[in-house]
């Protein structure tokens, strides 16, 4: 009998073209996504070698990183000529190569990791790459998906393959049910806090357990998106009925006989019952409280009901120094209740939490409430399709009525690469994925949380336990 295999191993085996002399495997790439932040560099590298894009049909491009998210009925306020050049170069490169591109002006434009899945471009069992670390998002579909550097983007464009060594397999089991007010984002932050920001390095994580099975595709994407924040190469959830009903009828999803054949094959895409994992972690989310970050990496998170940690209580000297440095940057005092921390800005958006369900869950909290005085609150839908859907449901009206700025799609203040950024010292409640120093602008302070928690912070003006408002 065949040796039992993990889902990761099954996808891996199906993509090995050849084993190289140095032990790496040459893997076929089924889906490649390009964005404005890397396309300029990659097309330039290809041109320098006089190479063409080998499989434009397996590539999808979007503009998101440098695109301003202000009103689209006037000229866009690009940060500088370099940003304009990035937009020009992705458009020109894609047109020349024949790559499907959803750029500025296209109603499908948006954040690469929102657009790829919602167009049906990402499918179970595929190998997908993109020059962006949050490519791990697509693991929600049972795709093996990971971020690559710019040199590798060039390699994929030229060859439609990637060379890699197999990672170890790790299983994270979330036991539920999940309590009301607690979201996929809280589960992700709980995982970071539990295993640390290097806890997944060298591994590909498969998520299992009742709390994962119960998740929607949007929630699975949030969880897999944040998987890179524990250092893992990728996250995976085996496809099931939830996956199929999400994909059915999407613009780029297979149709007709192709769909039937695909569904039949996808049913076998799961880890065999006796498959061995190199590492197993089990987390119980039954009593999980909503989480916020207090520090400068996503693992520096705590239940919102907790206090700011004390460096003196740290397990090691190095840990104490790291906490002290984070508190200094964040302007927080040890022992201070997290719920006392006042915020200046709210950002609801990003590839982590800029999808339709995220906006719905925020509206549930802000409905019939107002953004607190002195707080600036933004909603940046993850894509044009998300924005249109939200407007069909009237969500934009609730946001506007509460005093939110309802914006156009893009990465915006997740990375602050498009000219939209906070001032030094400003404090933000953000639904994005990284609270690194300077991430939302030099000197800016970021607290990561779920959309519902960010909405609660918007209306109270401080970090708030959303369960008190539900």
């Amino acid at each position, binding site marked *: 009998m065949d040796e039992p295999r993990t889902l990761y191993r099954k996808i891996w085996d199906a993509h090995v*073209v050849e084993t190289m002399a140095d032990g790496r495997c040459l893997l076929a790439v089924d889906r490649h996504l390009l964005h404005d932040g890397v396309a300029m560099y990659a097309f330039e590298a290809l041109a320098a070698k006089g190479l063409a894009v080998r499989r434009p049909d397996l590539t999808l491009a979007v503009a998101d990183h440098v695109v301003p998210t202000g009103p689209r009925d006037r000229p866009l306020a690009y940060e500088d000529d370099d*940003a304009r050049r990035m937009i020009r170069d992705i458009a020109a490169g894609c047109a020349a190569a024949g790559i499907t591109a959803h750029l500025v002006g296209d109603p499908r434009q948006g954040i690469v990791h929102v657009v790829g899945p919602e167009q049906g471009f990402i499918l179970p069992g595929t190998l997908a790459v993109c020059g962006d670390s949050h490519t791990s998002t697509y693991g929600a579909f049972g795709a093996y998906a990971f971020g690559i550097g710019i040199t590798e983007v060039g390699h994929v464009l030229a060859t439609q393959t990637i060379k890699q060594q197999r990672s170890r397999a790790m299983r994270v089991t979330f036991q539920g049910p999940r309590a009301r007010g607690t979201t996929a984002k809280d589960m992700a932050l709980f995982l970071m806090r539990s295993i640390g920001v290097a806890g997944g390095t060298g591994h590909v994580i498969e998520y299992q357990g009742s709390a994962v099975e119960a998740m929607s595709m949007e929630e699975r994407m949030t969880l897999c998106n944040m998987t890179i924040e524990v250092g893992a190469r990728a996250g995976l959830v085996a496809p099931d009925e939830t996956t199929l009903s999400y994909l059915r009828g999407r613009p*780029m999803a297979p149709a007709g006989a192709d*769909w039937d054949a695909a569904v039949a094959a996808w049913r076998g895409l799961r880890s065999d019952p006796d498959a061995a994992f190199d590492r197993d972690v089990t987390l119980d989310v039954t009593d999980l409280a909503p989480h916020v970050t207090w520090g400068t990496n996503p693992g520096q998170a705590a239940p919102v009901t907790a206090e700011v940690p004390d460096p003196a209580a740290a397990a090691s000297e190095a840990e104490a120094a*790291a906490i002290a440095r984070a508190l200094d940057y964040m302007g927080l005092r040890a022992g201070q209740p997290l719920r006392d921390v006042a915020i200046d800005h709210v950002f609801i958006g990003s590839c982590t939490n800029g999808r339709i369900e995220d906006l719905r869950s925020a509206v549930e909290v802000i409905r019939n409430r107002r953004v607190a005085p002195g707080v600036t609150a933004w909603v940046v839908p993850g894509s044009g399709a998300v924005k249109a859907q939200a407007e069909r449901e009237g969500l934009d009206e609730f946001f506007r009525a509460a005093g939110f700025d309802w914006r156009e799609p893009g990465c915006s203040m997740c990375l602050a690469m498009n000219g939209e950024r906070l001032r030094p010292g400003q404090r933000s409640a953000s639904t994005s994925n990284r609270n690194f120093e300077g991430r939302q602008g030099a000197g800016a302070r970021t607290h990561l949380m779920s959309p519902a928690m960010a909405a609660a912070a918007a209306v109270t003006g401080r970090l708030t336990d959303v369960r008190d408002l539900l």
Partner: protein
Amino acid sequence: MQPISCHTGIAAPLPMADINTDLIYPQRFLRRARSSGLAECCFHPLRFRPDGSHNPDFILNRPPWDHASILVAGRNFGSGSSREHAPWTLYDFGFRALLAPLFADIFKNNCLNNGIVPAVLPEAEIALCLTAAADPATAEFTVDLERREVRHATLGTLPFAIEEADRRRLLLGLDEIDETLALLSGIEHHEAAREQGAPWIANRNRGN
């Protein structure tokens, strides 16, 4: 890419864990052309004060470490974003080898594509290296990729870990694209076989 086999130079100690690529190369420089030279962006938030002046306390602003070509860092160096600007800026600053107990996956791979040696040493030995590097008298290190060892006047010879495939890539400095294109018929064969068994892979429905 330039092959690299053995490098001797000044090592700079950076005794922090989890240094992310936002800190190595902040986002506001992410639109710069590679050819413009990215050395000045390297560790910008640490090297410069908010007003733009040099931070004299930061190690890379002080001799002899302003000419450092080896970096000794804490665990999980290069975490976060996949931006290849991180190894680019390190390379442009002059770094050819990095010593740490653990490197983030995508960053490590980007180093291998840019001729920078990511050498893994145990936590305890990194602690010794950090101390030695902090003293100008003992800041010179040799990183020998051929022999997989770090050599130092007082610490002696410390073996380091690197995957054999990674070591070969750096030593040979081969162009990965050329190497792969030599296998083109195998790639085409694999694609054809896969699309036969899994026709939906072909992405026929391109949404236009």
